[in-house]
């Protein structure tokens, strides 16, 4: 199938629903959510490219929920958001992985700080696996959030407390 973009549109409510459920499951005030990531596992009858449909619906939903004030249409086109240089929330790109796999396949979902991708204490990953899925004609879509830094983080670099540029990176 050449034109798969309608499915990206169809995934928007799925992304929003998952982001809300995830936030609720975290069971902490929203300001304690400090890192995020996303991923997709495509069943054996699908293409890796089908997993790429998750970038906009998954990323946008989570960022908006955490306080991002961007423009969804521009985001879908891949255009830049205007960085104000002012403190804001969910300014950073949502890191991701994807693969084609059998039921029960494991995916490592990367995690980075929601406001500045270079915050070193928050570089991490979480292993995700759904027993029995994806079947050959299914996809597993994943969103991940965390409350903070790695345990005993001590390799220096940019600290969350020192984010100053508010450009999504530093």
């Amino acid at each position, binding site marked *: 199938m050449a034109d798969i973009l309608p499915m990206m549109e169809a995934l928007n409510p799925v992304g929003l629903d998952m982001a809300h459920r995830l936030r609720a499951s975290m069971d902490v005030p929203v300001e304690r959510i400090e890192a995020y990531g996303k991923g997709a596992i495509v069943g054996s009858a699908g*293409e*890796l490219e089908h997993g790429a449909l998750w970038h906009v619906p998954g990323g946008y939903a989570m960022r908006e929920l955490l306080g991002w004030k961007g423009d969804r249409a521009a985001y879908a086109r*891949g255009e830049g958001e205007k960085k104000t240089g002012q403190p804001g929330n969910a300014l950073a790109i949502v890191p991701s992985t994807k693969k084609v796999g059998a039921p029960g396949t494991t995916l490592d979902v990367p995690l980075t700080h929601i406001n500045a991708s270079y915050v070193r204490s928050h570089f991490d990953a979480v292993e995700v696996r759904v027993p029995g899925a994806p079947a050959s004609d299914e996809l597993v879509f994943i969103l991940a959030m965390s409350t903070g830094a790695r345990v005993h*983080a*001590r*390799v220096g670099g940019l600290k969350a407390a020192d984010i100053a540029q508010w450009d*999504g*990176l530093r």
Partner: protein
Amino acid sequence: MAARIRKLIVQVDETLREMNHAVEPPTRRALAMAVIENPCAGRYVENLDELVAIGEELGGLLGRRCVEALGIAPAQAQSYGKAAIVGEAGELEHAAAILHPKMGATLRAAVEKGAALVPSAKKRGGLGTAIDVPLGHKDAAFVRSHFDAIEARVSDAPRANEIVVAIAVTDSGRPLARVGGLKASEIKGEDGLR
């Protein structure tokens, strides 16, 4: 101290057809892995500089191995990623010490430029544990056609006192990429994002 390396493994993953469509040119992803001894295994070590130095060394070594395996000039590299699997006697933070402070600079020297963040993943695991190495465009993180990942696995590593360190470099994006977004041909490549 230099890395004590037990194994080096280099693979090239090349996709020529997908869903009965030719992929032209084929997409190619190189993966270079080192199995190293973890000098901090088995006890709490506060200062991880030794691992930081190992990361600096392996960024260059594994980055160059990838570029060589692809048979390209360094500037032709398009996307990259890094990951580490720490054996049972180590800490997740040991992976962080290898991956984050100094690996990026030597990896970027091996692929030229590299304005964008090097995406990463880390975990603790036993023999044969797999890790998905995230991939992103090396000069503009928002290039949608290059968001990808490649699975790295060494069947007999990491042992408890070892770390598997992986670097992936490509000369292409996903096969048959067609979900829109920022294109590689449109980037400025200055701020690392677009």
